[in-house]
């Protein structure tokens, strides 16, 4: 490996020997193509005409009136597939094509990354397998159906609690046996090097756009940027645009589940301890001996016991602050944005909104907050209906 893939002491590539040569190949090919004129032009064209970039920065007037300060929403929910995930799957999918790989595999929690990978498998005519936990298959059946319509095979993962962690385990196992022709399209800014770097690279468009939109539309930088954090790809994407603007506060919101005190949550950065899982050193939810916890959250996409290494570094340095939003607050936020703005947010993104709502009355009225609306909530309507039946 040419680089260590470290963010402070976090990250690295803690994987079985069999995966080292493939990660080396991936690192080499990424650095070969990511600034290549042809690659950049093709990705730009697809991002615009296939995925729908740039996405708008929308001033949510009625929502702002409710919370008492100015809230701008970065509309990643409007992208093709309904989430920011397509930024990464287009980038990595194109990289796979340039590398001459013919097969894609991916893990998925909420199904958004699985769907975004299945779309790209169809786009490039690649055979696609999506690993998904049985619990997630059940709670995200619409996305499962969409993946199948795109021609992907959805592999049900039985291990553990049948969620994202188990899906990653099985995708890694499958990859070790099929390294020669298969590209593992990793979905978040975590896992072994070079994935955190690659995923961040393809998600920085969110932050770059949002920053220049702030300057164009508001005439200044925001005071706070808020995003939800599971593995952390949408958050690192939008944070990256403001990293050097020291006055812009960065807030990542994790899944508080039932409550952090109950132990039924996925608030990795808030209460986790440093360990090694899925190829990286990072904060983890684990017991005293190092067995990794089963997590719990109303949103499948944040239901993960580890987190991206760069977020771990940002937490330690204090550059970003990480908090947790509990399921009940998240459902309130989901309902509120829908009612005030006619925008149905994904339950994942509703965590970021819940934090914004919690700041009501605490921030001056001229405060500008940018929230990354990482995905739309159509996929979650049946879950919300179950938790909060309409009268």
């Amino acid at each position, binding site marked *: *490996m040419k680089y260590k893939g470290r963010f402070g002491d976090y990250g*690295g*590539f*803690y*994987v*079985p*020997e*069999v995966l*080292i*040569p*493939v990660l080396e190949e991936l690192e080499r090919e990424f650095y070969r193509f990511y600034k290549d004129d042809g690659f950049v032009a093709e990705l730009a064209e697809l991002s615009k005409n296939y995925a729908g970039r740039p996405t708008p920065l929308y001033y949510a007037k009625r929502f702002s009136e409710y919370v008492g300060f100015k809230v701008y929403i970065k509309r990643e929910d409007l992208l093709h597939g309904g989430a920011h995930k397509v930024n990464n799957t287009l980038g990595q999918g194109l990289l796979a094509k340039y590398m001459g790989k013919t097969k894609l595999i991916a893990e998925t929690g909420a199904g958004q990354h699985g769907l975004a990978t299945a779309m790209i498998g169809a786009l490039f005519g690649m055979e696609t397998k999506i690993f998904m936990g049985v619990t997630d298959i059940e709670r995200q059946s619409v996305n499962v159906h969409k993946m199948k319509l795109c021609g992907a095979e959805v592999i049900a993962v039985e*291990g*553990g609690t049948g969620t994202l*962690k188990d899906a990653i*385990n099985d995708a*890694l*196992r499958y990859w*070790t*046996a*099929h*390294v*020669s022709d298969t590209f593992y399209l990793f979905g978040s800014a975590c896992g072994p090097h070079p994935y955190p770097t690659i995923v961040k690279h393809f998600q920085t468009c969110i932050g770059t756009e949002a920053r220049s939109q702030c300057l164009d539309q508001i005439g200044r930088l925001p005071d706070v940027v808020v995003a939800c954090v599971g593995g952390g790809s949408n958050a690192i994407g939008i944070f990256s645009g403001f990293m050097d603007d020291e006055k812009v506060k960065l807030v990542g919101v994790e899944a508080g589940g039932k409550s952090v005190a109950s132990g039924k949550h996925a608030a990795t950065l808030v209460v986790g*301890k440093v*360990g*090694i*899982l*899925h*190829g990286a050193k990072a904060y*983890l939810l*684990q017991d*005293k*001996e*190092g*067995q*990794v916890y089963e997590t719990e959250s109303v949103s499948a996409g944040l239901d993960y016991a580890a987190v991206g290494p760069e977020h771990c570094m940002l937490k330690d340095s204090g550059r970003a602050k990480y908090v947790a939003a509990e399921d009940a607050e998240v459902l309130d936020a989901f309902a509120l944005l829908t009612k005030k703005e006619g925008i149905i947010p994904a339950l994942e993104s509703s965590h970021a909104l819940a934090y914004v709502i919690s700041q009501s009355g605490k921030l001056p009225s001229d405060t500008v907050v940018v929230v990354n609306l990482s995905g739309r909530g159509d996929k979650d309507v049946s879950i919300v209906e179950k938790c909060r039946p309409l009268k």
Partner: protein
Amino acid sequence: MKTYKQVFSELKRAALIPFFVIGDPAFDTSFEVVKAAIDAGADILELGIPFSDPIADGPTIQKADIRSLCNGMTVKKALEFIKKVKDYKDIPIGLLMYYNLIYQYGTEKFFNDFHQAGVNSVLIADLSVDDANEIDGFAKSAGLDTVFMVTPNTSEERMKLIASKTTGFIYTVSLLGVTGSRKQLSGHIGELIGRLKGLTDVPICVGFGISTAQHAATIASAGADGVIIGSKIVGFIEANIENKEKMLADVSAFVGEVKTALDNNA
């Protein structure tokens, strides 16, 4: 304490190395199973401490991990288990496990405590030779041998690096993939052993997918210094979970069969 070197130099044939998950299905039965394997002719033991997320393992070992964890296995109890095994017989023991359990225990303390209990080496499935500096100082001062993996896609340059960091044996993975029994051996394993033998004098033990006495004999004929058999043997525990007598008899019979094949191959 018996060393790998002693075993490899005393034996006139390839060493027989069964793998078990400590505490599978539960502490006491697991100990009886390991005793049965020792009595049937195991030369070295490869033991795993169960982990919640064993990414290098196929379904058989995953299930063994779950059985063991569900029955209360912990790192502390694994230490006791090893002491009990060493009290029964002075046989070299290699641990094969995942990094997070060691990291949480504290690497230096883990190596010291487990070496004192009778462990000869610790192979960390998710720590490659690139990060050997995180462990090798502690391994050396604890008195442990180092063991690293080589796989069929490892480059020659990397094989040399791995050999230079290895004091125990090279754990050679026979195929691209995770642990699990297979009907057939990989066709390239003879060539892989040959290439390694041309590069280093460090003993070469081969594992992953070795499922019959015939497989073991073939690997030995190709020049391996040891044959590691995991999933096939652990499968006898899974298959006889309600019948301990048959579980012990099947493990014993299979290990005996492999030993005979290796003896005849000497």
